[in-house]
């Protein structure tokens, strides 16, 4: 049976992502189908509705049986897509979760400088506020404003443990699926979190969750690492994501599907690394200068690119140049004396998740990042029906946005 999927999407979502996830889950749904079945992705329409919808036209050798198949398949597809959003992709398990679990104490010791922009936001909230920090890490911002109460959550139990040791109220939870009832918080923050989510759907879901858990009129601050780094040499030193990781990862960068060619699962994608022509680069620099906030002077870095405790910790591997590329591995050097004698690091090296660097006396982990391009955060939220943008800015190599729930 040849199944043709026409997918209606919100204009902001990259079609490839939706298609790929849809196909993966649709194939699971099509139980008992023979290997001769092909799934053909053809064309797409943008719908007025903000909900993902799919109409499925199925038929045997050309015969079309639309209506009843469409409705049922659409519902199933939506459900598949919905649940798939919350399942953690392999690349995040390996290159985000396990890494932070392994490096938690060392990572925490380097996270103490408070970013002025976050402090400003928190101080602008009414006294006696309840503030939710989703992806709180080592709890750096919990309790920042004395007269508000913070509840933090992170997916890393070791990091959450560090927060609890400091007396904070915390929960181990997934930012993509917050175990919170709707509208409880006065405000929410997501500081350097969304760039660890490997698909656009998950990033958008995490934003939906942040907005969901605050009250009407509540504010949400989101910050993410920018493609447009103030120190452009950093980007050159990060390792761009390559083909060998594609099985673990579904996301933008998958090849654009041509309309009449079958899309078979398991084929390798190619990632074109385009370099930005000179004129574009200069234009970008200008835009950065316009955004730069001269009033914020931060010692050491806040966005995590340079460790505050000695610069040796983050030594980037040389990688290919690809400024328009957004998927990277950013290394973390865990000094031998900070690594556990037995446990996560030994296991990580044994199964290839980390490398020993004797010269630097450290175990090198890679963290997955999807760095955001200019305007990407706005595009991600542009279709939201229950939130409006009240501020957007670039600061210290991060794109930032403030939303208000309507």
């Amino acid at each position, binding site marked *: 049976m040849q199944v043709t999927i026409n997918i209606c999407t919100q204009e902001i979502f990259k079609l490839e992502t939706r298609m790929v996830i849809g196909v993966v889950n649709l194939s699971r749904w099509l139980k008992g189908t023979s290997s001769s079945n092909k799934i053909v992705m053809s064309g797409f329409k943008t719908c007025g509705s903000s909900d993902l919808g799919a109409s499925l036209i199925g038929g045997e050798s050309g015969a079309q049986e639309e209506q009843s198949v469409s409705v049922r398949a659409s519902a199933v597809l939506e459900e598949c897509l919905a*649940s798939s959003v*919350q*399942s953690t992709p392999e690349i995040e398990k390996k290159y985000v979760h396990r890494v932070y679990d392994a490096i938690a104490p060392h990572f925490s010791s380097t996270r103490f400088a408070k970013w002025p922009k976050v402090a400003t936001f928190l101080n602008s909230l*009414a*006294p*006696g*506020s*309840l503030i939710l920090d989703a992806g709180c890490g080592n709890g750096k911002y919990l309790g920042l404003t004395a*007269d*508000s*109460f913070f*509840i933090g*959550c992170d*997916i890393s*139990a070791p990091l*959450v*443990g560090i927060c*609890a040791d400091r007396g904070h*109220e*915390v*929960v*181990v*939870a*997934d930012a993509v*699926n*917050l*175990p*919170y*009832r709707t*509208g*409880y918080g*006065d405000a929410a923050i997501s500081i350097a979190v969304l760039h660890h989510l490997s698909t656009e759907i998950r990033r958008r879901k995490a934003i939906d969750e942040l907005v969901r858990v605050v*009250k009407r009129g509540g504010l949400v601050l989101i910050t993410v690492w920018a493609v447009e780094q103030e120190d452009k040499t950093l980007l050159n030193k990060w390792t761009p994501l390559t083909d060998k990781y594609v099985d673990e990862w579904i996301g933008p960068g998958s090849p654009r599907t041509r309309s009449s060619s079958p899309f078979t699962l398991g084929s390798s994608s190619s990632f074109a690394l385009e370099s930005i022509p000179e004129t574009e680069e200069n234009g970008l620099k200008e835009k950065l200068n316009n955004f730069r906030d001269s009033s914020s002077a931060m010692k050491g870095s806040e966005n995590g690119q340079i460790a505050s405790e000695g610069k040796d910790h983050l030594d980037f591997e040389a990688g290919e140049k690809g400024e328009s590329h957004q998927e990277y591995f950013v290394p973390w050097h865990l000094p031998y004396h900070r690594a556990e004698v037995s446990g996560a690091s030994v296991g990580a090296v044994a199964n290839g998740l980390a490398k020993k660097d004797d010269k630097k006396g450290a175990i090198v982990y890679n963290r997955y990042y999807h760095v955001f391009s200019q305007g990407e955060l706005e595009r991600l939220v542009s279709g939201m029906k229950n939130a409006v943008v009240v501020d957007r800015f670039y600061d210290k190599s991060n794109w930032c946005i403030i939303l208000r729930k309507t």
Partner: protein
Amino acid sequence: MRLLTHNMLSSTIKGVTNGFPLKIEPQTITQRPVELNPVFLKNMFAKLEWKPLVEASRTMGYFELPEDVSDLSVLESEEFLQKLHHALLEIHLEEGALVCPETGRKFPVQKGIPNMMLHEDEV
């Protein structure tokens, strides 16, 4: 885990229609005094699901919260604010479990931290 947090936590297991409130199975409870903030308490009062809070506080061994708070003048009573403060912020569940009201699935609480992470098949 404080009852302030418990009043927000909800089970998001696939298929569950209403995952709130979670039933508390306490094992170890501690009390830790903390400064009272009336502005915060009054702000929180509007957000609370009162009956679940009362029931949760009783499970945790505290029986002072009134069942009926329909008279909002109660917020002006220092005595009431003290009780609300104590229930929300000073009683801690250190070890125990939170139980999904529909599936019975237990979310462990260890060292005061609820682990709300779902398994692959619950998502």
